[in-house]
């Protein structure tokens, strides 16, 4: 029993509630938000340290015994993701001070951010499949607010689609959980894992596995289900887009990762083969999209789809190295996507357009922006020693080990397409003749937006260079994923 692991979830929750008051006072809103995020980051970091020393931490709500109450489990996987979420939220909120707009700040933007973080962190931490649904709803409710906030025409149009898609997938989620419950008779994830191992995963469980893949795949934007993502994500302003792009799809990826390593591990030839095929098609579809567009937002948004494919490819290998790579790449991708969205937000700010064809020659006027964009772009594509390298290396190594030679090579080739797609932004926007320039650029505002972006790019560089120090943590995370018994023991025997 350890309540400490709840702090990264309930600190944003309580601060979000206090932010509902005093909507019109910006100073109060901003200071309280930053204070809450810093507090939560400190708690999350010490949680990572504690999990590293003592193994997975658990707490079952209301002093109920383990499989009956709702258990929250903080293992290395969730502790790392929770920490990353909070750090990114901190930088995105900081960046948003100048770019989100005062109207939005005065209308529940900050409570929305805090509640979305509550939901995301809760989904990463929970050890109960129905509670996972609840936290999904918490983050979706907050995301409905953030996507429609501002009420521009495009936002209203896209939020209708977004809400429809998510209501549909939430309904399917409950139905799937009900199916699973009717077969195994429990909702605790550790207990489900044990029960499925006992009955050796008959056909009906495999069907449920595929249904879960559909549910989470819709959130994570895997191949046939990513149709809603590019248009929905292009509607909200950049800070909200960065928050969504960095966090929301990753919750779906995490959920697939968790269910496919903890529950459905007895019919790999079917479930994980399916996951492998879908992840490869996802990568290809994302590559096509990223190359086809001349809109900077769309290019980066399609890169989200590619990254989801890459991570799930690592999960589908179902070996220690592949999963370690997937963890490395998951955290990398969260950081680098947030950084890239913030960078292109700056590009859009100084040019006043999202169309690549109209941009040009920014290198002369904004050299620092150009260089930082270049670093982030190389990091995304996985140029050593930047952050994407190790993750992809381990994923491909895992692919070779599992005997998927051709698909692994395809994955490597996709890195080139990723590099090409982001370099196109660099070439069009930063090289060449002077293109369109916005006449509303305020140097002070620009600097205030650039500073947090710069720090985040530095963090991504550190993440790449400091791989050596992070490896023990990632190995720990991969071990939990590959050996469900560590997870189930921690829940069933821990505490109480």
């Amino acid at each position, binding site marked *: 029993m350890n*309540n400490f692991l709840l702090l990264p979830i*309930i600190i944003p929750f309580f601060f979000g*509630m206090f932010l509902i*008051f005093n909507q019109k006072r910006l100073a109060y809103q901003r200071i309280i938000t930053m204070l809450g995020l810093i507090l939560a980051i400190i708690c999350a970091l010490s949680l990572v340290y504690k999990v590293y020393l003592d193994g997975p931490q658990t707490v*079952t709500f*209301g*002093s109920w015994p383990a499989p009956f109450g709702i258990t*929250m489990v903080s293992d290395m996987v969730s502790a790392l993701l929770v920490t990353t979420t909070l750090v990114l939220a901190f930088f995105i909120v900081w960046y948003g001070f100048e770019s989100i707009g005062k109207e939005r700040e005065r209308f529940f933007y900050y409570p929305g951010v805090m509640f979305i973080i509550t939901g995301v962190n809760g989904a990463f931490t929970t050890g109960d499949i129905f509670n996972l649904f609840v936290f999904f709803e918490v983050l979706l409710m907050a995301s409905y607010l953030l996507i429609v906030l501002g009420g521009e025409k495009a936002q209203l149009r896209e939020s209708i689609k977004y809400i429809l898609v998510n209501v549909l997938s939430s309904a399917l989620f409950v139905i799937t959980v009900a199916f699973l419950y009717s077969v195994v008779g429990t909702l605790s994830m550790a207990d489900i894992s044990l029960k499925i191992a006992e009955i050796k995963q008959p056909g009906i469980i495999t069907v449920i596995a595929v249904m879960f893949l559909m549910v989470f795949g819709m959130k994570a934007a895997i191949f046939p289900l990513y149709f809603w993502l590019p248009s929905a994500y292009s509607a909200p302003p950049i800070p909200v887009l960065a928050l969504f792009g960095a966090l929301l799809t990753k919750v779906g990826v995490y959920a697939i990762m968790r269910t496919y390593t903890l529950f459905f591990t007895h019919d790999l030839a079917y479930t994980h083969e399916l996951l492998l095929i879908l992840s490869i098609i996802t990568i290809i579809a994302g590559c096509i999209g990223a190359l086809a567009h001349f809109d900077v937002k769309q290019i980066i948004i399609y890169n989200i789809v590619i990254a989801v494919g890459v991570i799930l490819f690592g999960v589908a290998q179902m070996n220690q190295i592949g999963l370690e790579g997937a963890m490395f790449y998951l955290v990398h991708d969260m950081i680098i996507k947030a950084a890239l969205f913030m960078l292109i937000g700056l590009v859009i700010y100084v040019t006043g357009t999202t169309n690549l064809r109209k941009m040009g020659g920014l290198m002369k006027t904004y050299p620092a922006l150009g260089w930082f964009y270049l670093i982030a772009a190389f990091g995304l594509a996985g140029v050593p020693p930047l952050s994407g390298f190790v993750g992809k290396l381990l994923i491909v190594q895992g692919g070779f080990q599992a005997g998927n030679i051709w698909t692994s090579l395809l994955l490597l080739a996709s890195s080139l397409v990723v590099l090409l797609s982001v370099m196109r932004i660099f070439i069009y926007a930063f090289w060449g003749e002077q293109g369109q320039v916005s006449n509303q650029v305020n140097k002070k505002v620009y600097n205030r937006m650039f500073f947090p972006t710069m720090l985040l790019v530095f963090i991504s560089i550190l993440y790449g260079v400091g791989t050596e120090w992070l490896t023990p943590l990632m190995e720990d995370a991969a071990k939990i994923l590959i050996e469900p018994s560590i997870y189930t023991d921690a829940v069933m025997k821990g505490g*109480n």
Partner: protein
Amino acid sequence: MKTNDVILQFTAKIVFFMIFFYAVHIFFAGHYTPGGGFVGGLVTASAIVLLIIAFDIKTVQSIIPINYIYLVAVGLIIAGATAAFSMFMGKPFFTHYFDYFYLPLLGKTSLHTAALFDLGVYLVVVGVTMTIIQTIGEDE
């Protein structure tokens, strides 16, 4: 044309209190029998809606001068604080406490912290429902 709603207004004034006390009854019944904060909140909200129908939003706003969005926040804080209280006692989150007390008039009564949590739920439900209804009702 001026509609004649004397009867509606007169009845609403009385029925409002009947509904409200019924909501209180349901709220306290909630622990061992069907009821609780959620239903109680909905019933209370329906009582306020009845007033809005009988009079109009502005009048009701001056009778009950509450910012319903703040009501939601207060409710969330009460519910969250009740759940978090046990963390300070070294027990898992959401652990509730109860005991039997001898109160004047009521006699032996069981007091349960779950009722505080339910009070939070009640306020949230009233706040959310009324916010929705007001937002829709304000549009002309």
